[in-house]
Structure formats: structure tokens, C-alpha cells
């Protein structure tokens, strides 16, 4: 299935776009989508890294790495936040 991932801040700047659509298998989890982001866009690989604190938000809430993604979900990469 195709999953569109919204990008913000340094992630959007590195990828050169505000969103990226990746192909993953049915039943793919957040972990799978993060990995697919890194494969789809080389500059994103270091940013979409769970070990560095990158997380996906699914429908505006932080999601566990093991959470499966539904085709209708709104998915966003939340990394390197810098509010305040």
C-alpha cells in the first residue's frame, strides 16, 4: 500500500518536500514506514531514525513502533522539534 508521510522543519528541508509517499506491505507498522522513508530519500535516512528520537504521529497522536498503519491514516514524521 501507499502511505503519505507529512514532513516538517529540518526533515522537510532535508527531503526537499513537505510530504513523501512510500510503498510498504499490507499491515506495515510505524517501524516499517520509518525505514521506508530512509530508503526512499537518502537525506532523510539520518533524520527518520527512531534511535535519534524520530517518531511517527498517526492521526495526530504519537504512535508506537509496532502500531500498524491503515491506508486512511494521516501520518506525519515528528523529528527534531524546536518549539519554545
Amino acid at each position, binding site marked *: 500500500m501507499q502511505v503519505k508521510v507529512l514532513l516538517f*522543519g529540518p526533515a522537510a528541508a532535508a527531503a526537499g518536500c513537505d510530504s513523501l509517499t512510500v510503498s510498504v506491505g499490507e499491515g506495515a507498522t510505524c517501524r516499517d514506514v520509518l525505514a521506508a522513508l530512509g530508503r526512499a530519500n537518502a537525506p532523510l535516512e539520518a533524520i527518520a531514525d527512531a534511535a535519534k528520537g524520530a517518531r511517527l504521529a498517526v492521526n495526530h497522536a504519537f504512535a508506537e513502533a509496532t502500531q500498524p498503519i491503515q491506508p486512511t491514516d494521516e501520518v506525519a514524521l515528528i523529528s527534531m522539534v524546536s518549539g519554545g
Partner: protein
Amino acid sequence: MSVHIAIVDGPVPATAGLAPTEVGRVGAVLSFDGIVREMEDGRRLIALDYEAYEPMATRELTAVAEEVVRAHGLISLACWHSRGRVLVGAASLRVVIRAAHRGEALVAMGAFIDRLKRDVPIWKEPVWA
């Protein structure tokens, strides 16, 4: 116990959070303004542009605020955060905590801002001079 959260376009208004104090129980009102500084990484800037992923940013701020109010036994916590351009010298963040005593207010202020900087989907981008 109450929480008020607002993401506002541009700098936070100067009088936000200074409404009359709840009479009786409140012994401490602690107010923090985060101000845009002139130098970042040794370079001069004229402003910061803030981007918020809404409605998640407001939801996360609200969840963090409720958690901090509960954990520290606060009476209330109010937070304003900017979106869009904030010039050097203006405030991009205001947090106002009301509590019975100063001790819990000071600890809670640090904890809330730490959580905000880690968990709330807001990004800033420098506008260089």
C-alpha cells in the same frame, strides 16, 4: 485545576495570562516568557519563523500541561505559543503557572518547558540578518 493552551499567530500578546488571580488558594504566580535572541550559533538573525503541526501541537501541549498540573498539584497552567514570524526581542512562548506555593511552581515550570521542547510538534526556522 485548569489548563489553557493557545497557539497564536506571531508574538504572544504582552498581557496574556495576567487576568486577576484566583483569590484565596493561590500563593504563587510564576510567569515565563521565552524571547527570541539576536544571535543563534554565532550568527545574527532578525526573526524566527515558527511552524506548528495542528491540531496535534495544541493536543500535545494540552496533554503535557494536564500531566504537569496533576504531577505537581498546580492550581492552573496556561500556555501561549507563537506560530509564524516572531522578531528578535519578542516573546514566542508564555507559560503562566498558579500554585499554592513557589516550590512546586518552579519545578513544574522547568518540567513543562522541557517536555514542550521534546514532544510538541513545533519547529522554528531562523531568518538571518
